[in-house]
C-alpha cells in the first residue's frame, strides 16, 4: 500500500514496523510529530520525557533490558542528552538503540543550526541520513539491525526538510516480534562505567567504528548512480534531491551512512570522475572526511555553510563556480519592493502570558527569558525579554547577573514545561547560593510552542492516561523558596502587586502565573469577542501597548484629540479582558457587561 507521509510520519511508521517497544522524547520542532504519530499505533509504549537526557536514558534502559529503545529530539536536545549519548556508546546494549536527531538548517524554529553529524564522530557512533520519506521509514529498521549487529547506538539524523516534506511511501509489515523477555544484565565490566571498566571499553568502541566503516563499504544506502564522468557529486540527506534536480546527468554517490565513511567506495568514485564536488547542508562534514583521505574535493568553496538549501540556492552557487553555464541563471522577478510589511510571529490574541510582560515592561527590570512562546514578548510594544539562549538558561543567567552585583533586580521567566525540563536545578542553585532573583513560571497548563503536548504538570500522559500532576507551588516551596505566590494569568492587578513586592526583596522569590493556553480546545469554547464603546474611547492608545493583534486602529477619529479610536477585531478577540482591565476610560466592557449590553 502506498501512502503520502511526511518524514516524521514515515519514521513513526518505521518504528512500528521495527517493533520499537519503548520510545521517549521531548517535544521540539521539527521532530515533535514523530512520537505523536508513533503513539497512535496500537499496543505501543511512548512517553514525553521531562527532557532529552532523560529520554535517552529511558531508551537506553529499554535497550539494556534487551528491547528496542528509541529516543527522539531536535538537534539542540542532543546537547542536553550528550552525556547519556556518550556513555551509551561506551557500554553498548543488549537490544537495539536508535537516537533521532532532527537538525534545523535555516533555523526555522531554533536558536542555532548546529550539525549533529559531528556528535556521531565524537561518540564513535554510526550516523544514518535518509533523503526522503520512504528511506526515512525503511532506515529505522536498518538502524536497529546495525545497532544490534555492532552493539552500538545509532544516530538517525533528519533535517527539517525531511521531517516536514511529504512523499509517497510503500508501507511494510510489522516485523514479527522475536524479542523475548531477557533477564536484565548483570555485567558490570560492560555496564558499570567506573574508570577501571571504561578504560577497557574504549579500545572496543574504537575497533567497533573501524568495523562499521568496513561494513559501510557495502551498505546498500551508500549508493553510486553512474553518470557523466566530468562531474562527480557526493551528497547525503535532502541535498541529494537538489543534486539530482540541478545536475541530472552527473555521477552521484549518495551516502545513507554519513559516519563512518566508506573510504574505498569514495576513493573509487573519486577516481572515476574528473571533478569531485560535495553538496551537503551546514558543516563541511563529508568534505573534511574526504579531504583527510587525501582526495582533492570542493564543497564549501562553492555551496553555503549557513542556512538551508533549495534548488535555486544550489543552482546559483553552481553557476558562480562555473559548474553550470551562466545561461542556467533564473533571474528573480523584481516587480515587488522588498519593503512589504512582514508577519513576524506574535503572541496570540488572548495569550495568557501577555499581562505578565505588560507589567515587566512597566517595571523596566531586566528579564532573562527561556525557550517557549513567551520569547515573543521580546518584540515591541512589550519589549520585555532581554536574553534567551537555550532551555533552562534564564534562571542561571539571572542569578549570575545578580551575583555580578548588577544594580538592577533580575527576573527570569520560564514556561511550565521548560521548568520541568531544566529549570528546577537552576532554581535550586538560586536557593542554595541565595540571590535576589525573581523567577516567574508561566504555567499555561501545556507545552505550547510545539503545539500542545502534555507535560508533568498537566495530569495526562502522551497515551492519554490520567497521572499525577506535579504541583509547582509545593515543589518550589519544598526547594526552600520562602516568597512564593500563585496568581491567575489574566489578573493584571494581582500580577503587578506581586511583582512590585518581589522586585524589592533581597532574597529569592517565585511567582507562578497560571492560566491555560488560549488555544486549548476547552478554552476556545469560552471565547467571546469584546468590543469598544466608541463614545467612550478617546483614542488614548493605552490598549495598543499590550500588543494584542486583535486590537486595531479604527477609522473613527476622536473629535478632541484627532487620534484614531481603538477597534476590536471580532474574529481575533478571545475575550481575555486584559484590555478591558487597563482601559482608563472603561471603554471596553467586560464579558458580563457585554452580555447585559447585548440583551438590553
Amino acid at each position, binding site marked *: 500500500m*502506498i501512502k503520502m507521509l511526511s518524514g516524521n510520519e514515515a519514521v513513526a511508521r518505521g518504528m512500528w514496523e521495527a517493533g520499537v517497544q519503548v520510545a521517549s522524547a521531548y517535544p521540539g520542532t521539527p521532530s515533535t510529530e514523530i512520537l505523536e504519530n508513533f503513539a497512535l499505533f496500537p499496543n505501543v509504549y511512548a512517553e514525553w520525557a521531562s527532557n532529552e537526557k532523560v529520554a535517552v536514558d529511558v531508551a537506553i534502559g529499554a535497550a539494556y533490558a534487551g528491547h528496542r529503545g528509541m529516543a527522539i529530539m531536535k538537534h539542540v536536545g542532543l546537547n542536553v542528552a550528550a552525556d547519556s549519548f556518550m556513555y551509551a556508546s561506551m557500554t553498548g546494549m543488549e537490544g537495539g538503540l536508535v537516537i533521532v536527531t532532527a537538525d534545523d538548517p535555516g533555523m526555522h524554529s531554533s536558536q542555532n543550526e548546529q550539525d549533529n553529524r559531528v556528535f556521531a564522530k565524537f561518540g564513535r557512533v554510526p550516523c544514518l541520513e535518509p533523503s526522503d520519506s520512504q528511506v526515512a521509514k525503511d532506515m529505522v529498521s536498518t538502524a536497529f539491525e546495525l545497532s544490534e549487529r555492532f552493539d552500538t547506538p545509532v544516530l538517525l539524523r533528519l533535517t527539517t526538510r525531511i521531517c516536514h*516534506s511529504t512523499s509517497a511511501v510503500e508501507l511494510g509489515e510489522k516485523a514479527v516480534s522475536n524479542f523475548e523477555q531477557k533477564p536484565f544484565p548483570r555485567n558490570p565490566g560492560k555496564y558499570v562505567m567506573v574508570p577501571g571498566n571504561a578504560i577497557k571499553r574504549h579500545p572496543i568502541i574504537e575497533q567497533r567504528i573501524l568495523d562499521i566503516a568496513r561494513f559501510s563499504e557495502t551498505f546498500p544506502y551508500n549508493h553510486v548512480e553512474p553518470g557523466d564522468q566530468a562531474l562527480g557529486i557526493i551528497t547525503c540527506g535532502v541535498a541529494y534531491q537538489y543534486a539530482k534536480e540541478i545536475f541530472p546527468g552527473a555521477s552521484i554517490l549518495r551516502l545513507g551512512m554519513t559516519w563512518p565513511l566508506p573510504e574505498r567506495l569514495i576513493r573509487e568514485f573519486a577516481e572515476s570522475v574528473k571533478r569531485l564536488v560535495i553538496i551537503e547542508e551546514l558543516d563541511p562534514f563529508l568534505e573534511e572526511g574526504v579531504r583527510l583521505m587525501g582526495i582533492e574535493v570542493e564543497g564549501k568553496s562553492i555551496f553555503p555553510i549557513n542556512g538551508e538549501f533549495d534548488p535555486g540556492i544550489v543552482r546559483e552557487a553552481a553557476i558562480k563556480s562555473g559548474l553550470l553555464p551562466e545561461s542556467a541563471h533564473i533571474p528573480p522577478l523584481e516587480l515587488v519592493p522588498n519593503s512589504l510589511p512582514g508577519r*513576524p510571529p506574535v503572541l496570540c490574541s488572548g495569550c495568557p502570558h501577555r499581562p505578565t510582560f505588560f507589567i515587566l515592561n512597566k517595571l523596566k527590570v531586566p528579564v532573562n527569558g527561556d525557550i517557549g512562546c513567551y520569547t515573543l514578548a521580546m518584540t515591541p510594544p512589550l519589549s520585555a525579554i532581554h536574553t534567551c539562549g537555550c532551555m533552562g538558561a534564564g534562571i542561571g543567567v539571572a542569578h549570575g547577573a545578580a551575583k555580578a552585583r548588577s544594580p538592577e533586580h533580575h527576573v527570569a521567566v520560564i514556561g511550565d514545561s521548560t521548568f520541568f525540563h531544566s529549570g528546577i536545578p537552576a532554581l535550586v542553585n538560586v536557593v542554595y547560593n541565595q540571590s535576589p532573583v525573581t523567577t516567574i513560571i508561566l504555567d499555561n497548563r501545556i507545552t505550547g510552542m510545539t503545539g500542545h503536548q502534555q507535560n508533568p504538570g498537566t495530569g495526562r500522559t502522551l497515551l492519554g492516561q490520567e497521572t499525577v500532576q506535579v504541583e509547582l507551588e509545593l515543589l518550589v516551596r519544598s526547594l526552600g523558596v520562602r516568597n512564593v505566590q500563585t496568581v491567575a494569568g489574566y489578573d493584571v492587578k494581582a500580577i503587578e502587586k506581586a511583582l512590585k513586592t518581589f522586585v524589592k526583596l533581597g532574597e529569592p522569590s517565585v511567582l507562578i502565573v497560571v492560566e491555560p493556553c488560549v488555544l486549548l480546545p476547552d478554552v476556545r469554547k469560552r471565547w467571546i469577542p469584546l468590543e469598544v464603546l466608541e463614545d467612550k474611547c478617546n483614542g488614548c492608545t493605552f490598549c495598543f501597548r499590550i500588543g494584542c493583534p486583535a486590537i486595531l486602529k479604527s477609522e473613527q477619529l476622536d473629535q478632541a484629540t484627532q487620534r484614531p479610536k481603538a477597534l476590536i477585531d471580532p474574529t481575533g478577540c478571545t475575550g481575555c479582558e486584559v484590555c478591558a482591565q487597563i482601559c482608563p476610560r472603561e471603554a471596553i466592557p467586560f464579558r458580563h457587561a457585554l452580555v447585559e449590553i447585548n440583551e438590553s
Partner: protein
Amino acid sequence: MKTQVNFLLAGVGGQGTILASDVLVNVGLAAGFHAKQAEVHGMSQRGGSVTSHVRWGKEIFSPLIGLGEVDVLLAFEKLEALRSVKWMRPGAMALINMQAILPLAVISGEQTYPTDDSLRQVFSQLTSNVAYINGEKIAGELGNVKVTNVVLVGALSALLENGILDAGEIPPEAWLKVITGRVPPKHVELNRMAFISGREAVTGNKNQ
C-alpha cells in the same frame, strides 16, 4: 499535463493552507503523478506567513521549489500574494483570494498595506493568467468561512483545466474524493458545496 507543475500555496497561519496543500499532493498522487509537498512554516503561533510547496511530475526530486520556478500560485491572502511574486515564473498562473489580514506593523501604523490597484498592477505585468476570487464571501454564504480553503481548491481545479492539465485528466470527482476523505463526515456536504462553488466562481470569471 506538461512534464512538471510547481505549486506555491501562500497564506497566513489559520487559513487552512496546510489542508489545501495536503489535498493537492494527494490529488497528484491519485492522478498517477510523482508528487511531493513541503510545508514551510515556523513557530506554531497564529498570524505568521505560511507557505507550502507542492510539485507534480513524472519524477520529482526536490520537495522545495527554487526561486523563479513556480508555475501556479494559490494565494490565500493579498499581501502574501505579493510576497510570493519573486518565486514565480513570468506567465505563471495565479489564483488570488482577495482577503486582507493585517500584520501588526500595519495595525500599529508603521507600515501600509498594499492597495488592490497595486496588487492587480503587479500581477498584470507578470501574467495574463490571473484570477481573483472572494473565497471568504463564497464560504460565508455557504455558512462557514472555514471552508474558504476548499472554495479556493475548487477554483484552482477549474483553472488548471485551462492549459495546465489535459482535458479530463483530473475530473472534479477525483478532487472531491480526496477532499471528502480528509474532512469529518458531518462536514462532507459543506466541503463538497465549497469545492463546487469555487469552481463555478472562476468559470468564465477570469481577469475580472
